[in-house]
C-alpha cells in the first residue's frame, strides 16, 4: 500500500461512461465524467435528480445493476488499480473495505429481520474477522454517537429513529476503515435538525479517521459545511468543478448560478425564490451542443451547435461554458 501523504490522489475517475439500455434506446446516464479525490478530502457531487450522480457513485465499485446498466468506457483507478476491469474476487475485497457506502434511505438500507448489532458484526466479519466482536460493535455505535450502545445493538432497525438508523449505517460503513466513504444523499430522508447532526458527525469522523468522502447531494446548502471541492453535474457530465468556497461564492456556469439562486435563505423574505425554468432533460433525448442551453438564461445562438463545449480549466477551476471562462 502507498504512503499516506495528504495531497496524494486516492481515486481517479477518467472519462467514465455508463449507459442504460431501455426500450427507448441507449440512455447515457454518465457520459465522460472525470474527477479525482485526494486522501482526506471531501468532494461533493451536486446535481438535480437524474443527472447521473448516483450512477457515478455506484460505478466506483461497479455496483450499477447490469442489465440494464453497462459500462461503456473510462477508468476508475483506486490507488492505480482499475475497478472496472478487476476480478469479482478483488472487487469484493474492495467493497466495504476500501470504499464503502451510505445510502439515502437508512430505513430500507438495513435488513429488517436482523438486529443492528448483528449487521455491523457481519460487516466486520467480511473484511476484519479478527475484530468481529460485540465490544467492537459497541465501540462503533458509540463512535457514531448512539447512546446506550450496548442495548441499542440488540434493537431491530424498525425500533430506531431515522437519524439513529443512518448512524447505524455509518457505523457499518466505517467498520472496516474505508479509505473512501461514498455518502449518497445521506440526509435527504431525514428531518432538518437530524440532517445537521449527521453532517456534523460525518465531518467529525472524517477528521478522526482521516478518510476521504464523496458526498452526493442535490442540496447545495449542505455542501458548504462539508466539502473541500465541488463538482456540479448536469445530464451525465460535469459542468463545473472547483474549490467549494470559491465555487459557492462565485459560481461561473449558468447552471450552478441557477442552482445557488434556488436555495431558500433565512432573512430574505422579499426576494422571490428563483427556480430553473424547464425540466431536467430526458437523458434518452439530449439536445445538440451544450446540454443546458434550452434552460439557460444566457443562451446564445451558437450554444446549440456541435461540438459541445469542453470543460476548460484555469486556476483550479473548470467550467463547461465558453461565455463564462474562469
Amino acid at each position, binding site marked *: 500500500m502507498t504512503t499516506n501523504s495528504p495531497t496524494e490522489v486516492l481515486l481517479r475517475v477518467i472519462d467514465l461512461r455508463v449507459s442504460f439500455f431501455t426500450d427507448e434506446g441507449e440512455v447515457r446516464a454518465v457520459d465522460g465524467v472525470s474527477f479525482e479525490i485526494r486522501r482526506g478530502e471531501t468532494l461533493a457531487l451536486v446535481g438535480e435528480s437524474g443527472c447521473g450522480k448516483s450512477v457515478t457513485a455506484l460505478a466506483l465499485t461497479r455496483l450499477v*445493476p447490469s442489465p440494464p446498466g453497462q459500462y461503456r468506457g473510462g477508468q476508475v483507478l483506486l490507488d492505480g488499480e482499475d475497478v472496472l476491469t478487476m476480478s469479482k474476487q478483488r472487487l469484493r475485497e474492495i467493497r466495504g473495505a476500501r470504499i464503502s457506502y451510505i445510502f439515502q434511505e437508512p430505513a430500507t438500507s438495513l435488513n429488517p429481520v436482523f438486529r443492528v448489532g448483528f449487521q455491523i458484526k457481519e460487516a466486520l466479519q467480511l473484511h476484519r474477522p479478527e475484530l468481529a466482536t460485540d465490544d467492537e460493535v459497541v465501540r462503533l455505535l458509540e463512535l457514531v454517537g448512539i447512546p446506550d450502545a450496548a442495548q441499542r445493538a440488540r434493537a431491530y432497525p424498525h425500533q430506531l429513529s431515522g437519524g439513529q438508523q443512518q448512524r447505524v449505517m455509518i457505523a457499518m460503513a466505517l467498520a472496516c476503515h474505508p479509505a473512501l466513504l461514498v455518502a449518497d444523499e445521506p440526509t435527504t430522508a431525514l428531518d432538518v435538525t437530524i440532517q445537521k447532526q449527521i453532517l456534523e458527525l460525518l465531518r467529525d469522523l472524517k477528521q478522526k479517521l482521516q478518510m476521504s468522502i464523496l458526498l452526493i447531494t442535490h442540496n447545495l446548502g449542505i455542501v458548504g459545511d462539508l466539502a473541500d471541492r465541488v463538482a456540479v453535474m448536469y445530464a451525465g457530465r460535469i459542468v463545473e468543478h472547483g474549490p467549494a468556497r470559491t465555487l459557492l461564492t462565485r459560481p461561473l456556469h449558468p447552471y450552478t448560478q441557477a442552482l445557488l439562486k434556488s436555495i431558500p435563505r433565512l432573512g430574505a423574505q422579499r426576494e422571490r425564490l428563483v427556480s430553473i425554468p424547464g425540466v431536467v432533460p430526458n437523458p434518452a433525448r439530449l439536445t445538440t451542443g451544450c446540454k443546458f442551453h434550452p434552460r439557460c438564461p444566457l443562451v446564445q445562438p451558437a450554444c446549440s451547435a456541435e461540438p459541445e463545449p469542453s470543460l476548460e480549466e484555469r486556476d483550479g477551476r473548470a467550467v463547461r461554458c465558453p461565455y463564462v471562462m474562469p
Partner: protein
Amino acid sequence: MSTPATSLWRTAWQQLRRNRLAMVCLGVIAFYALVALTAEGIYWYYRLTDQTPPYKQVNFDNRFAKPSLRHPLGTDSLGRDVLLQVIQGTRIAFEVGILTSLIAIPIAVVLGALAGYYGRRVDDFIVWLYTVFDSIPGLLFILAIAIVVGKGLLGVCLGIGLTTWVGLCRLIRGEYIKHRDRQYVLAARALGVKNFAIMFRHILPNVLHLVIISFSLRFPGAILTEVVLSYLGVGVQGEPSWGIMISDAKLRLWQGHWWELAGATAAMFFIVLAFNLFGDALRDALDPKLRTAEAKTA
C-alpha cells in the same frame, strides 16, 4: 424507545397465541404428531425384534367385530384392530407430509431464489421448467413417477414432492424479484457480500415466513394425495395407511361395517382441518401485508 427488542417471529407467536382456534388446532397437530411418533416407535420395535406387530395380527374368529372396549374401533375383514391401524396410518401420513416437504420445499426455494435474484436467462429457464411441470396433469404425473420408482412410500413421496413445488417456487421467485432491488441488498453488495450469501443469508430470512406458511398448508394436501394414491393402488404397500383402509372398507360398507371407514376418515378429517385452519392463522400472523389486503377487500 425502551420497549424490549421483539423479532418478527416473537410478534407473530404472540399474535398466534391470542387466536384461540389456532391454538386448538396446534394442540390437535401436536397430538397427532405424538401419535405418529409413538406409532413410529411401535413400528420399529416390532420390525427390529422380528415379530408380527399387533395391528397386523390376524384373527379370523373375530372378523368384523363391532366397536367394543377391547377394540374401540372394531376389527376389519381379517380381524385386525382398526384403532391400531388408524394409529399406524397417522405415522404414514406424517411421513408423507414431511418427506414430500423435504423434497418440494428445497427445490422451490432454490429454484425460486435463483430465478428471482438473477433474472434473465436463469429466470427464463426456471420459469420454462416449472411451466412444463405445471402443465402436466398432477395426478397422472404422480402416478407415472410412482410406477417408475415402484409402488410404495418412496414412490408416493417422490411423486408428490416432485410435482408440488411449483406454487411455492412461483411465490419465492416473485418475492426475490421484489427484494433484489431493495436497498438493503444493494447495501450488502456494497459491503462485498457474495451473491449466494445475499440470496440465502440476507434475502431468505425475509421470505422464510412464506416457506413456513406453505409447509403447513401443503401438509394436508400431501396427506390427501397419499390417500388417493393408496386408494388407487399405487400407494404404500403392506402397511396400513388411511387410504388403504378406506379403499378396503368401501366394499364392506353396504354390509353395515361402517367403523373401518369412519375411523380412517375421521382421523384424516381432523388433522387436515387442523392444518388448514392453523395454516391460515399462521399466514395471518406472519404475513401482515396479506392480512391488511384481506381486511380492505372484506
